[in-house]
């Protein structure tokens, strides 16, 4: 130890101050040189414009992630098709065969695949959306881009998966003797609206998941409950008629967005059953009930897509400056 220079922190002279800073003060000096507050969130429309500017990043990231998803598996990209098929097989076994739902519903297999795939789109968008910010902290900290890119691309990944699933849906529809009609084309606007809805939901849970990691743990349970309430694998009509359900419960079930999306697409594909195929008129009524589409279905879908899409975007944007915090 040298005694020559013992450094005592408190006795050091104060650090020199930049002369311009001393003269002007921080805020005026920043204004003079056109410096902006770091990490301040841009106004909503500017943010939307920035997001549009990064559209290649959003799609490029989604496509790359989608390709990488099954890269560890032996069967590789085949899982894009196998996963939905196996999902349907499980539900068909449980609900079609064990619970004999199939007798209440015309074309049960088609009914089931539409429900499972469309709901799965929402479910996985939410579950992966909740992790989209917290799992990519390294990327968020290293590079600067509008953070909404991440939940949006998780929804796009799921949309790409849904495209594979829709191939199965069409195969099933043709295989179960449904005749193609122009009504099938209505699937496209329905899926488009659902994509907007799912993107909005993904942004909402992404913000929640970024501050509270518990969100990602809770979501599978919440979304599973939601799935059973949507009539994905059974006829919702046979439940909502029961007198035991309170009025508000029926309202919730009637206006539930995923249930409406599923019903609309089912109606595009499944043609109205003929009374002659049923023994009693009660059985025929049950079958009709299972694919009943309320008259407000389409306007409601547009409403949900706009409200959740825009609302989710604004909710996500409000916390833009906090996502790097982790």
């Amino acid at each position, binding site marked *: 130890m040298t005694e020559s220079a013992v450094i005592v*922190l408190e006795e050091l002279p104060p650090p020199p101050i930049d002369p311009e800073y001393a003269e002007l003060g921080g805020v005026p000096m920043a204004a003079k040189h056109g410096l902006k507050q770091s990490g301040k969130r841009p106004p909503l429309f500017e943010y939307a414009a920035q997001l549009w500017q*990064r559209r290649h990043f959003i799609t490029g990231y989604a496509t790359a992630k989608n390709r990488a998803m099954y890269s560890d598996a032996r069967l590789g990209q085949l899982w894009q098709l196998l996963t939905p098929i196996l999902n349907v097989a499980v539900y068909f076994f449980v609900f079609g065969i064990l619970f004999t739902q199939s007798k209440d519903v015309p074309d049960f297999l088609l009914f089931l695949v539409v429900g499972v795939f469309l709901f799965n789109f929402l479910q996985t968008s939410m579950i992966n959306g909740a992790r989209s910010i917290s799992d990519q902290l390294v*990327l968020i900290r290293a590079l600067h881009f509008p953070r909404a890119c991440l939940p949006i691309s998780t929804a796009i990944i799921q949309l790409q998966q849904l495209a594979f699933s829709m191939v199965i849906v069409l195969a099933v529809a043709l295989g179960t003797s449904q005749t193609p009609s122009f009504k099938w084309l209505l699937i496209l606007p329905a899926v488009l609206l659902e994509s907007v809805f799912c993107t909005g939901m993904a942004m909402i849970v992404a913000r929640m998941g970024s501050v509270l990691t518990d969100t990602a743990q809770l979501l599978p349970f919440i979304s599973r409950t939601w799935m059973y309430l949507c009539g994905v694998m059974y006829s919702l009509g046979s439940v909502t008629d029961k007198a035991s359900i309170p009025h508000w419960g029926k309202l919730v079930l009637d206006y539930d967005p995923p249930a409406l999306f599923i019903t609309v697409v089912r109606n595009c594909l499944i043609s109205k059953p003929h009374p002659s195929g049923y023994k009693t008129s009660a059985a025929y009524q049950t079958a009709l009930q299972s694919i009943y589409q309320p008259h407000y279905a389409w306007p409601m879908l547009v409403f949900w897509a706009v409200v959740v899409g825009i609302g989710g975007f604004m909710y996500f944007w409000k916390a833009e400056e906090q996502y790097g915090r982790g």
Partner: protein
Amino acid sequence: MADTPRVLPSQVLRAVQGVDGEHSYTDDELAGLRAQILEERAKRRAEAATNKPTVVVDNLNIIYRVHGAGTGRGSATGALSRIISRRTSPTVREVHAVRGISFVARRGESIGLIGRNGSGKSTTLAAIAGLLPPEKGGGVYTDGQPSLLGINAALMPELTGERNVIVGCLAMGMSKSEANARYQSIVDFSRIEDTNPHAMSLPMKAYSSGMAARLRFAIAASRDQDVLMIDEALATGDAKFQAQSEERIRELRESAGTVFVVSHSMAAIRDTCDRSIWIEAGKIIMDGDVDEVADAYEAWSRQS
């Protein structure tokens, strides 16, 4: 100086102090080199002092709020009710990490932040990058959007190196054609393919931490940034890459950018920076010429 192999400031200093036994210079040559380095540095600092500021840190205070300290993560129902009521957890501990720091950085400056672990260096950088919102009464003002390179591993671990480069460039706001045009120079700079010619087609999680750090640095340094911040990111690279990236830092500095380096290696700080800021317990202790500050810090570290 330009045609002779570059001698790093830290090597000269060590030789002058007689710490490094092996060198082929005479004392006079050494004294000349040292004088030249000091003179160049003084000239650069004098020039930079009149340049346009890129970062103004104005009375910066950062307080971390640590949730649920002492009671674990809390129950699911508790978490749910917190989401709904937007109430903060009752057991919040506050950590005042940065206490009223002010300084100005200008174009052409390279600033080394030094200090012990937990002194607030990385927090300061995160605040400059806009990742941590400052407390009221102060703020950070920057020119453009600063990038922060941390020590953490891959950018997108499940994607291949190739995809990481392209998607990373797109995220920085390049167009598709621009990203493709930059691709080869980024790969060449990272020297990833020197050791394994197929490395770019492997997922980045398969890279060693040094390889990942190299590729990440190459991606972020590919664009001429106004403000680049490097938080120990160079420490994992091998000696050759360190020299190469230090060269890139000097280039960025010469192209009128501002570079911040956080490192515990005083040699790396002396080689890349002209100015240094010593932070202790969230406050600036010293701010000035890199040798002065680094000498004082080293002397202080030895005595305590």
